[in-house]
């Protein structure tokens, strides 16, 4: 079984080259449908990937951040990048600090440079864990075939059992589906892992209460929220973001936050750790605390702890996505983003904040930056459909004989 991993890089830019590199990256496209520059399609293990320019701030240089969601491990991915996109990397790196001058770059140099700029990913969520890009495409093809078969023959079947047998026979006859026989089950909630996190939080509860009180007096009362709705943001800023949105079924979100210090930073690290733990053990069936549209999301601390970024790949629009979170677990947002400067004022860590939805969305837009290159390996697949199709494959190929109830449930999802 192949696990999905996050690769994050941050590379300092030469401050006078921001425009040049932005222009270059923009030729890669968002969404990158027909890529001419930095064509991720050449690497079959990439689910989603992006390059963004992180603007300079008062004390920080501008930089590039690269984020890829891949099958397999990072080392191989960096090698793949050099093998398939080495020349494109060179074009980007000429604008970066510390890259060997023209002529000196070879594969070894490039790899060393990439390795040097790898940064850890503190929070990581995978919507459909344990599924490779290839598998996701194969399962989509399988679903289409099953649906076509049901459409054509559905009238002939008297019972769900009839349907099940007919579908199994239809698929069994064709060696095209041999790949599906390879053992696979979508992951299930890890009860022990979930219990461990719950227990840990319970044990830490007294500490957490003290923490929340300190946060209240030392952070919340002194917070300086941006206090702006989406309608109070410069139209050009909004337009630059919206021009990259709602083109395919999915959207991207790239946000850069100034990180508060002290306890808030400590809290952020803990909650991101807990989120990642929850993502690996609990939220493995296609939803993150009730939000069912996220393919991959990550939180990465950059600039040596001065800022952090959030990158998401999700179905639907910006408004739908942020609204979904507020509808389902606004308090979860508050624990994490309370650490970001300008966030709507929280109340004892969990309250208010994102529940002031208009201000929350305004903050979301103000911290959002354009994503210069954004790639999706399956731009038209919804996350729930990916999950459904894996279930169908497992039910038809990897589950032995199904019970009457299981068959009915399976047929409903076709």
């Amino acid at each position, binding site marked *: 079984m192949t696990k999905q991993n996050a690769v994050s890089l941050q590379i300092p830019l030469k401050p006078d080259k921001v425009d040049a590199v932005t222009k270059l990256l923009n030729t890669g496209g968002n969404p990158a449908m027909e890529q001419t520059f930095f064509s991720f399609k050449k690497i079959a293990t990439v689910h989603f990937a992006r390059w963004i320019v992180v603007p300079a701030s008062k004390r920080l240089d501008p930089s590039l951040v690269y984020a890829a969601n891949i099958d397999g491990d990072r080392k191989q991915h960096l090698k793949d990048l050099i093998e398939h996109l080495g020349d494109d990397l060179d074009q980007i790196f000429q604008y970066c600090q510390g890259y060997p001058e023209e002529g000196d770059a070879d594969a070894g140099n490039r790899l060393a440079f990439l390795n040097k700029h790898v940064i850890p990913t503190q929070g990581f969520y995978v919507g459909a864990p344990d599924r490779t890009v290839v598998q996701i495409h194969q399962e989509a093809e399988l679903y289409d075939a099953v649906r076509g078969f049901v459409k054509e023959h559905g009238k002939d079947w008297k019972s769900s059992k009839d349907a099940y047998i007919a579908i199994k026979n239809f698929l069994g006859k064709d060696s095209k589906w041999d790949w599906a026989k390879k053992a696979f089950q979508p992951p299930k909630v890890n009860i022990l892992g979930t219990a461990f996190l719950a227990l840990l939080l319970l044990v830490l509860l007294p500490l957490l209460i003290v923490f929340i009180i300190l946060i209240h007096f030392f952070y919340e009362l002194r917070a300086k929220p941006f206090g702006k709705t989406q309608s109070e943001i410069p139209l050009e800023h909004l337009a630059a973001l*919206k021009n990259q949105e*709602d083109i395919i079924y999915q959207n991207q979100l790239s946000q850069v936050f100034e990180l508060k210090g002290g306890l808030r930073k400590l809290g952020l690290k803990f909650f991101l750790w807990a989120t990642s733990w929850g993502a690996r053990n609990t939220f493995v069936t296609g939803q993150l605390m009730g939000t069912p549209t996220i393919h991959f999301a990550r939180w990465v601390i950059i600039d040596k702890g001065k800022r952090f970024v959030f990158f998401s790949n999700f*179905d639907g629009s910006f408004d739908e996505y942020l609204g979904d979170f507020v509808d389902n677990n606004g308090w979860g947002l508050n624990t994490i983003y309370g650490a970001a400067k300008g966030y709507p004022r929280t109340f004892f860590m969990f309250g208010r904040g994102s529940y002031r*939805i208009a201000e929350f969305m305004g903050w979301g837009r103000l911290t959002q930056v354009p994503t210069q290159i954004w790639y999706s390996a399956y731009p038209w697949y919804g996350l729930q459909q990916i999950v459904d199709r894996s279930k169908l494959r497992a039910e038809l190929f990897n589950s032995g004989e199904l019970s009457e109830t299981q068959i009915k449930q399976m*047929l409903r999802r*076709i």
Partner: protein
Amino acid sequence: MAIIANPKTIDLKDVQGMITRGYGKLYETAYFLLKVEDKEKAKEWMKAMIPLIDSADISDHSEKTIHLAFTPEGLAALGMSKENIEGFPVPFREGISTQDRNRILGDWGENDPKKWRWGGHQEGFHILMIFHAKDKESIAAFLQEEKDRLQNSGGCTLMREMRGYLRPDNKEAFGFHDGISQPVIKGSGRPGPENDIIETGEFLLGYKNEHNQFPFSPLLKKEEGNTSLLQDDAAGSGKKDLGHNGTFMVFRQMQQHVDEFWKYMEQNSLNPDGTPNEEAKIKLAAKCVGRWPSGASLVNFPDKDPGGSLENDDFGYADIDPDGLRCPYGSHLRRNNPRDAFRWYDKKQSLKITRRHRIIRRGRTYELPPENGSDKGEIGLHFICFNANIELQFEFIQHAWANNNQMRHLHNDIDVIIGVPDEKNPKANHSGFTIQAEPVNQFIDHWERFVTIRGGEYFFFPSISVINYLTTL
């Protein structure tokens, strides 16, 4: 669902009547798009209009009414400063047609605003004037009077006139009873089903909404006009609120291809021997719409239309039809108001979410004579809706629900009535419709579009006192 009391807390005398009323007995409608030519004369004309505007108060029940709505250019033409116009929400300021909005709403291809008759920045118009009257004779006289008045005042020119009507049986052009499920504004004094009484701030600015927040409202930034006519910002900023008791209006002219609609239904419901099956045809259409032509719900009447005319709105999906076997998930009704069964959420969570995305609809049918050598006239709907937040209500419903080809377990189905696929989707021309059934679902693919957008715009629909204020700029 219990009908519960809904005590009056809003100053309905200040609210334009159309927000709370459908004018079910005033069958004839007309719309004038006006352009302000002379600011001062236009304001004088507006002053004369105010007494003719019906308020939402029950004591106001004239047999002919006027309502006024404004574009941002209209507010500017009446003398509102740039600073104050910039205080309005972005969708209203930008208008219905921007690149991203075209994608969200599905306004591409045949729906491309470049092909529209009106709106979408094609012509500068400033004021929308809406007329309701009892019958053809009374509206004709009414319109003539008002045209004369416009002419005499010299403040505005009439750029476009549109006519519409409500059928006495409330059926829209495809033949389905329309306008049944409407939210009831909390505080309007009208009792209603518990789940349909929605927080005032979803429909009127200056009140709390379903997020327990005040919706974003245009506050006065620069002192101008007689500000004593304006209310203070209810959210407590200390500023005057131009939005109070007003809202935003979405207007879209939707051509309905009625013959194509029924032909497609017929072809996909033929008897095994290839002959048409009238009953199956109506059933298929009802599955697509989510109601029978009479208005009866598929949840309450899964097999057959009980006939007559039914305002059948007393149902949820969660208990009786969780799997869509009666009313398909992908039907027009269930998509656009999933009621108590959204995603896999429980009833409480479903209702919490769906209540945040409701609109008040005031659509009426229109007909146009044949043009360009065609032997057939055009029929369709002047779709009108009211909402306090265009992005989270009208646009959300159109994009996240009607145009979403992957709701629930659907893989490439959009709303058969108003859905539009994504332009770049390679499967855009293969949209399906899934009828949940036992033992297996039925699929009907390769749908045509039966609705074409022919015009539209976003408007500010102010309170009566704010209309008054506009005359003092």
